[in-house]
């Protein structure tokens, strides 16, 4: 139990725990945000009140996620100061300003218009409301943009110069558009959107499976499908581009992702291992299952490679990542889920074209709907896996090839960090259960199809605009 007295390890555990937990929530608020823009737009265009009721229903899940997302986001920013003060000082010039941009560009926009989006249906006219919904979605996705920009810069620092242990920005454009940035932002925006699509699709499938509001939910299901046609394959392509970049800029990470101990020279057949049991002590894999030439096809679409893939043995153990099994399998999990989701989308499109998805018979597609219900949580697993590959695979560096994680941590009494770590573990477990519990209740309760359209409610609101009537408080009404 040495780690209990090791501040660096404890601070890393705390950052990992808080980051993994935090990541669960903005997924829906960014992806579902875009979906809400689509569905509210359809309502305004077609005047079909089903779309309005869709917007009102899905926004409940949005709000549930939003609160926990905000709550768990606060410790992320503050931890750079509390637990990683030397890092803050070294990277503040660039990284700190980006965190500031995120707050001013993204959070404030999202926060200011969220109130109108959720509670403002009776207070502003539909066009203003729609603008608010769009601004919320833009705010959430801008947040992805800035955070991924900041993280990409840690992966591939550019546009800066180290002066007395601090990075000074010499070229802001180069720093923002660092090598990883565009791909990483795309990969993450698509990831939140794809995960949200499969969550919406999965929940819609569950209702149809249970034959509740089948026609109503076949609408959301089909919107999901149409968007997924573009998103799921594109995500695989962008993921592939990210892999190529890792090969170019972070060879230690690629070697860890592939548990590749020996260098594969250019021109030699590059095999790809599907499964392996890496043994870090012996510097080899105890067992592995390989597909001949597959790595060559994955990276360059031909059996051999034009440049070598460096093996882990090229570096000393202090210069390369550890927890190989975690990185190796996290990567495979992410890829497998990406392909599964794309495959599910294709099968469903095929069934749609055969006319099997019309509202009167869609409930009979038991296996297909079951597949969608099963797929609902998979996007989350893929996202967490991807972040594990990205950040555990970057080790032992915090700023790749320059600042070691052990040098980035503040010298705190381990007891302090252990205490907050335990508090986080307990608090987050509680919040996770509560979110599941309340999320389940929202879904079990289902949409309120009786909800009057804006402007058609009780005249009181028209007479007295001061009357603040928040969005349907049904649970309190039952008290």
């Amino acid at each position, binding site marked *: 139990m040495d780690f209990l007295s090791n501040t660096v390890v404890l601070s890393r555990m705390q950052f990992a725990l808080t980051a993994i937990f935090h990541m669960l929530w903005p997924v829906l608020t960014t992806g579902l945000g875009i979906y809400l823009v689509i569905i509210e737009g359809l309502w305004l265009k077609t005047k079909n009140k089903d779309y309005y009721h869709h917007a009102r229903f899905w926004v409940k899940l949005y709000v549930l996620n939003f609160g926990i997302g905000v709550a768990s986001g606060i410790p992320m920013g503050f931890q750079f*100061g509390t637990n990683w003060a030397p890092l803050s000082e070294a990277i503040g010039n660039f990284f700190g300003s980006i965190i500031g*941009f995120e707050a001013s560009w993204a959070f404030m926009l999202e926060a200011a218009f969220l109130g109108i989006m959720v509670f403002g249906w009776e207070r502003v006219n539909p066009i203003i409301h729609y603008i608010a919904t769009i601004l919320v979605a833009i705010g959430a996705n801008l947040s992805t943009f800035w955070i991924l920009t900041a993280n990409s810069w840690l992966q591939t620092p550019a546009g800066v110069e180290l002066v007395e242990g601090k990075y000074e920005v010499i070229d802001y454009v180069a720093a923002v558009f660092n090598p990883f940035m565009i791909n990483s932002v795309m990969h993450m925006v698509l990831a939140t959107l794809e995960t949200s699509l499969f969550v919406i699709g999965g929940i819609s499938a569950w209702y149809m499976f249970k034959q509740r509001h089948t026609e109503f939910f076949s609408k959301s299901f089909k919107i999901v499908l149409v968007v997924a046609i573009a998103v799921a394959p594109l995500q695989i392509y962008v993921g592939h581009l990210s892999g190529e970049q890792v090969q170019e800029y972070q060879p230690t990470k690629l070697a860890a992702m592939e548990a590749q101990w020996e260098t594969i020279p250019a021109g030699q057949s590059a095999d790809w291992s599907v499964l392996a049991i890496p043994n870090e002590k012996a510097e080899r894999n105890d067992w592995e299952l390989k597909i001949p030439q597959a790595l060559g096809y994955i990276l360059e679409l031909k059996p051999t490679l034009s440049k070598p893939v460096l093996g882990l043995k090229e570096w000393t153990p202090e210069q390369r990542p550890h927890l190989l099994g975690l990185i190796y399998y996290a990567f495979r999990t992410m890829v497998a889920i990406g392909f599964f989701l794309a495959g599910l989308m294709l099968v469903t499109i095929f069934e749609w074209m055969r006319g099997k998805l019309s509202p009167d018979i869609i409930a009979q597609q038991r296996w297909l709907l079951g597949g969608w219900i099963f797929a609902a949580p998979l996007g989350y697993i893929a996202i967490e896996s991807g972040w594990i590959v990205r950040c555990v695979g970057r080790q032992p560096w915090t700023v790749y090839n320059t600042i070691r994680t052990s040098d980035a941590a503040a010298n705190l009494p381990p007891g302090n960090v252990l205490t907050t770590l335990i508090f986080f573990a307990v608090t987050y477990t509680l919040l996770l259960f509560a979110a599941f519990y309340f999320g389940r209740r929202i879904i079990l309760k289902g949409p309120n199809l009786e909800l009057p359209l804006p402007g058609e409610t009780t005249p009181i609101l028209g007479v007295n605009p001061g009357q603040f009537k*928040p969005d349907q408080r049904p649970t309190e009404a039952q008290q």
Partner: protein
Amino acid sequence: METLDYLLPQVWFGILALFLFLYVMLDGFDLGVGILSLTSSSEERRSILMTSLSNIWDANETWLILMGGSLFGAFPLAYGTILQALYIPVFIMIFGLIFRAVAFEFREQANRKWFWNIAFGLGSFLAALGQGFALGGVLEGIQVDASGHFIGGSWDWLRFPSVVVALTLIQGYVLIGSTYLIWRTEGELQQTHYKTAKIAALTTLIGAIVITIVTPIVYESARSRLFSQPLIYIFALIPLLGILLIWQLWQSLEKKKEALPFVWTILLFLLTFMGLALVIFPYIIPNSITIYQAAAAPSSLVIMIIFIGALIPVMLFYNIYQYVVFRGKITVDEGEIG
């Protein structure tokens, strides 16, 4: 170039002070309402209190995130040193804010509301307590080595003056929370908060007097600054203005004005804040690190003025717009809650 090296950190000191003031004012009344909810006699009252914040708490809290991010970018050294030194109060605040934030939605959904009521009230209280100790701890001064890194102990922030600061801040939050509720509610609930506002005004006043007396005695740095020319004239004016504002506040409460008590309280906060800023300036950590030592490189400060500073009017605009949209008294339809 020389002047720029001085001017840029000063501009950022001003911007950060503005963000912090907006946060303390706006989330101050949120937290105050949260603390007051601990004394609410019924679920219905608590519902009104929480409804009065449900659409704005998040935007209000965002000023803290913005202040944190800007401090990180503009004064990286101070960001690390202050937060590391205040590890314990900062996490008290963070856990308080976490429980406060989730309570809004979870309480709404829950059948048994008691747990989330406590989460909301106690969360607000802990957040205020953590902030009070953090402020007290910074005023106290932080032990640093020659390069500005923290070398003190984990509990350095816990001293008698910081206890007074923390208690006073909580009273201040209760005061601004009460006056906010006077503005936004009506009937019996409003009447109750005329009373709580008066009590809070008195307790805040006592705290303010103690701090005003204690500050020059305990804090060396403050003493030398307070009695230097020409600042002494400004500092002499602050208590006078403070008494005037408290008197106005009291009058407005006596006369049962609706919006005025809130306005006077905001002005009181502003005055206190300007006093604090003048005491601290040009330090960012009193007596050890100046804003010039802690400042980021000029290139970063300039870019941040463009990308954050220029957005301030826009951010203020959409925050104000939100208040306009949701203006008016908060009532929960009696038929809905029974």
